[in-house]
């Protein structure tokens, strides 16, 4: 294993894992968050538990690689294998501390689209929400993971599958959207926060990335930490050797992370 070289996705997993606090109940979806939870509970968050919309509740990493949340290693020695209504009711009761989301598009206020996009005036159908809309509406906070591709950053999503901060300001309260909305976006190039108005700003750049390189990827004037907080733009901490080892244990063939 070469700890000096890691993939963008490995970095995203490491960054996502840090967003799970110890004791959190984390709503884990497909792909990278599956691994991020396993890393978090193996390192700084031993008391975190994960819930999956399929009905699975776990307090530890699965015993083998997971293609999906329903692979048998995720069911085996789970705390509970129950129903979707059970899991979604925890979400609706406000008991999910952090939920993970992805998207084909994200806009200035963290709204996400996984339903349909337009490419060269042709409409492209995407798979749809899954549980994303529910997680976006009802989690105490959400963390978004996305490949850093300019076409994904839009002023306003074509279709608002998973509400973020809407049109900004007190939009969530006005629209009765219960949860806290997006708190962090991790792309393959940087980590972003959302300011008091719910607008995206760049918080830290991943190693080797500079601001000029990504600013043009956004069709609006991208805010930075320097404008929003007193802190300058940071440098995203690379994954530690221990964390990389764990990622490669949980995804031994790099199916999701390479």
């Amino acid at each position: 294993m070469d700890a000096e070289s890691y993939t963008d996705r490995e970095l995203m997993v490491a960054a996502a894992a840090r967003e799970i606090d110890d004791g959190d109940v984390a709503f884990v979806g497909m792909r990278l968050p599956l691994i991020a939870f396993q890393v978090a509970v193996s390192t700084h968050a031993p008391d975190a538990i994960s819930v999956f919309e399929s009905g699975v509740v776990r307090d530890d990493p699965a015993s083998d690689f997971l293609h999906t949340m329903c692979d048998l290693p995720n069911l085996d020695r789970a705390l509970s294998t129950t129903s979707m209504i059970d899991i979604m009711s925890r979400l609706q009761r406000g008991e999910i501390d952090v939920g993970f989301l992805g998207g084909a598009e994200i806009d200035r206020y963290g709204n996400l689209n996984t339903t349909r996009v337009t490419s060269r005036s042709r409409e492209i159908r995407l798979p749809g929400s899954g549980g994303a809309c529910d997680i976006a509406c009802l989690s105490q906070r959400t963390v978004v993971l996305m490949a850093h591709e300019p076409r994904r950053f839009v002023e306003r999503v074509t279709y608002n599958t998973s509400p973020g901060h809407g049109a900004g300001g007190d939009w969530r309260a006005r629209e009765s959207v219960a949860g806290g909305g997006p708190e962090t976006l991790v792309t393959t190039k940087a980590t972003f926060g959302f300011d008091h108005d719910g607008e995206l700003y760049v918080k830290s750049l991943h190693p080797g990335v500079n601001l000029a390189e990504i600013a043009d990827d956004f069709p609006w004037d991208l805010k930075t930490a320097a404008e929003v907080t007193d802190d300058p733009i940071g440098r995203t901490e690379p994954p530690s050797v221990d964390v990389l080892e764990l990622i490669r244990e949980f995804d031994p063939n790099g199916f999701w992370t390479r």
Partner: protein
Amino acid sequence: MPQSKVTDLSAAVGRIEPGSAVAMGLALEHAIPFAAGHELIRQETDELTLIGPISDLLFDQLVAADLVDRVRAAWVGNVSSGTGYNFRRAVEDGGLSVENHSNFSIALSLKAGAMGVPYLPTRSLLGSDIFEENDRFREAEDPYSGDRLALVPAIRPDWTVVHVQRASPYGDAHFWGNSGVAFEAVDAADDTLIVAEEIVEPDVIKSDPSRTAITRDSVTAVAEVPFGAHPAPLAGRYNRDNEFYLDYADETNDELGTIAWLNEWVRGVPDREAYMEKIDRDLHVSEPTVAAEVEYGR
């Protein structure tokens, strides 16, 4: 003696009429009744409405076979690879109508049907275009607090098809592992087809009544189909065949490939036994975890 509802899968699926609204693939990636879906394709049961939360390939296959008019679901694709190409083509070509749901809204729709009420209220959906675009979802004011809520109306499928580990000939079934919205859909449906990995003596079911997920009064037919969920996993029996999902993605990227795939894996295969011979992979659970003992008695 109660009546046995056991029949072969072909006869059972034959009872599902063209034009039916069918809920299947309800436990997410787990326990998907692929064998029954393939039988629908062989029987060319068309004009279907498909209902489910996410449908890991199954809906894409039925759409590929041009049997589906409408999908009411939260996500349609291939969890291993992302896109379901046939679903995508059908929607983009305008041949398939989609009612967009979230997982919770489809779950609540079926739960409302299961509870025998016209709708259930939720705090989800609000603020999303899923809510805005569909006038079946209604806005309501909570008469107690004045809070804004969304109402999700009941869905009552004509048929629900589920795959379970074991069932009695009368239709009482044990299930374990995550269930998604499977049993809400059974309760909501007019008719239920149980595809069981194994048909067992009624006494096996009665030895553990808290494991019973379905009772006979909801069940129309029971078919025994070992490996009937492949390539989906079934708790305690066999793991997910991820290669199969990836191969499907590779081979169904265009229409010709799709036809070839359907001919090879569905139309050209008489039944599940032949299909599993063709698969020729050992997916059995190799390291079983035995559930802690439970007793009832008097």
